[in-house]
């Protein structure tokens, strides 16, 4: 006689099952990143009641709405400043920003570099599908040269951002890149950042068969996955300046940066303690927001 040891899908407890099926296209990789994220939540043994997911707008922006955690679907580009306020108001939270390349690096680019500069304790997962997908396939700051988009019908000629290099230069404590082919490595990185203090950034290259690949005759989601398998090279510790992406070239993956910089709240506490001594009141040590009043306060 046999018995089932894993009777439910490990991702299932993290999903709002009543909202399934999700809106993502066949062959889209966003759901795959959610699988890795679920494994990371399990393995890291983080208190799930203390995890908050913050997304911006776009296909990846919908992740927040599917995860059964405290989750916020915010405005376009502003997931990081929302998350900044959330984290500062409740330092006990593990705040994860889960959004797309356009949201985080175009409209939200300024916020990303400043959050990295401050080294605020946010875990940023950027699903990079190289395109604005939700709106129908327009050029993103990540779209590689010569790719066809609806707003670059003759091919993109603007240079693209190298996301790991940008995140590192701005001050991120942890920078990694994987593709949706690298599900186990991705899960490990996601698990690592839960134990890492400071601004952490994980880029995950993901297929967009409908809006990116179809127009560029790059096949379907499975073709993208095979491409990742064949063209990825793991180079942990690679200088981020060398990991820029091209349309058809090698994809350097790995953990590029894992360094210790003082985190925002520690810097704040140190400065105020230095200047104010005992007069400084660290609200992280206070009972949770007594000034707000509870249900019985009226």
């Amino acid at each position, binding site marked *: 006689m046999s018995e089932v040891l894993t009777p439910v899908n490990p991702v299932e407890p993290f999903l*709002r099952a*009543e*909202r399934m099926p999700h809106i993502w296209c066949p062959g889209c990789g966003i759901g795959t990143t959610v699988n890795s994220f679920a494994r990371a939540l399990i393995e890291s043994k983080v208190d*799930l*009641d*203390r995890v*908050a997911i*913050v997304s911006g707008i776009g296909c990846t922006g919908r992740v*927040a*709405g599917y995860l*059964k*955690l*405290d*989750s*916020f*679907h*915010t*405005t376009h*580009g*502003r997931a*990081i*400043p*929302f*998350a*900044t*306020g*959330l*984290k*500062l*108001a*409740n330092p*006990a*939270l593990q705040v994860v920003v889960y959004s797309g390349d356009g949201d985080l690096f175009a409209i939200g680019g*300024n*916020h990303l570099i*400043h959050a990295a500069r401050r080294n605020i304790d946010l875990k940023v997962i950027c699903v990079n599908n190289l395109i604005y997908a939700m709106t129908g396939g327009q050029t993103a700051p990540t779209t590689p040269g010569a790719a066809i988009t609806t707003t670059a019908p003759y091919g993109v000629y603007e240079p693209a951002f190298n996301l790991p290099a940008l995140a590192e230069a701005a001050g991120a404590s942890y920078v990694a890149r994987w593709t949706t082919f690298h599900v186990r490595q991705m899960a490990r990185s996601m698990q690592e950042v839960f134990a890492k203090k400071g601004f952490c950034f994980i880029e995950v290259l993901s297929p967009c068969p409908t809006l990116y690949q179809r127009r560029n005759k790059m096949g379907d989601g499975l073709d993208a996955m095979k491409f990742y398998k064949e063209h990825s090279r793991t180079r942990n510790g690679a200088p981020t300046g060398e990991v820029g992406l091209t349309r058809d070239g090698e994809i350097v993956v790995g953990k590029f940066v894992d360094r210790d910089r003082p985190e925002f709240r520690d810097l*704040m506490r140190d400065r*105020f303690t230095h200047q*104010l001594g005992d*007069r*400084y*009141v*660290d*609200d992280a040590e*206070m009972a*949770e*927001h*007594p*000034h*707000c*009043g*509870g*249900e019985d*306060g*009226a």
Partner: protein
Amino acid sequence: MEADPRGVLTGVHFIDGDHACCEGALAAGARFAAGYPITPSTEVVERFASRIPTIGGTFIQMEDELASSIAILGAVWGGAKAFTVTSGPGFSLMMEHIGYAAMTETPCVFVNVQRGGPSTGLPTLPAQADMMQARWGSHGDYEIIALCPNSPQECFDLMIEAFNFSEQYRTPVMFMMDEVVGHMTEKVVIPAPDRIRLYPRRHTRKAPGELNLYEPEEDLVPAMAHAGEGYRFHVTGLTHDERGYPAMNARAQDRLIGRLQEKIRRAAESLALFEEEAVEEADVVVISYGITSRVAQRAIDMARESGLRVGKFRLKTVWPFPDAHIRRLAAGARALVVPELNRGQIVREVERAAAGAARVVGVPHAGGSVHRPERILEAIREAAA
């Protein structure tokens, strides 16, 4: 509930409106502020930055007003009371998050120390030209609450009301100061903490698993929860159902937007803060708000000296617009005179509410200074004739 004593600087002070506004926020329990420097509002957050480390809380200078205006919303969902402060151009940048706060029913306060516009306009000089922007600035259909102080004392007092309204109705509240009120230094009396009544956060009494985050209570306002408490809720700016889940269809839109508007509309009478004097026997009532009310007072005094029967009505609550009170004034007076530091914004609301029952005379001014009282007096005389 009473105010947290740590935030209340009880005593008699000689401070300007910006500083008094900050003290009002602290007394109201605000423990998180995000801001970006912009004249003439910056003093509010400068004072907050100096005060908050010894009270317990956070000030963060964000990279722009877009960031400031949503960082405060994150802080509210993290459990804090929060506000941001800006002026014209920054207010324009914050519009999207006023809509997000209205849609997600996030209690918070946006302070706008108004200066001349449009665009960079007059950074150091007053105007009251953002009144319609405060009402309609974010896209879509919503109701808003806006308060308008006319003195440093009122910057303190009304700031507490602003937070109370935001908590009671779970809506962003616009605090519409102007450069003159912001920079005017006067006596400000801050009462003892036990004399300051605060409306507490409408936190749900339900246990995790039982809460529908957007299920309204009797007054159409839902109770909320904070992140990290085990509710595992979802908040979105998309049109949503009572669970908080996206529901993008005409029926869900009608239901949600209808409720968001109705919860404020049906409270219009209790939201209407105003000051009035001698309106019953008046031939002419001067309707004003903010700094202009103080110039109008001089004009009213001069008109009365010359024998005219002039009443005064000062709006402290500008939005929702107190239609019923304006109708009452229009029924009793021959004319309503509306001076304001713009080329005609609130005067149109007065015209709409008066609905032809009284003559409405605007006294427009493009900003950059206050009116000359003589200009308002002239309008009163003309209206009385």
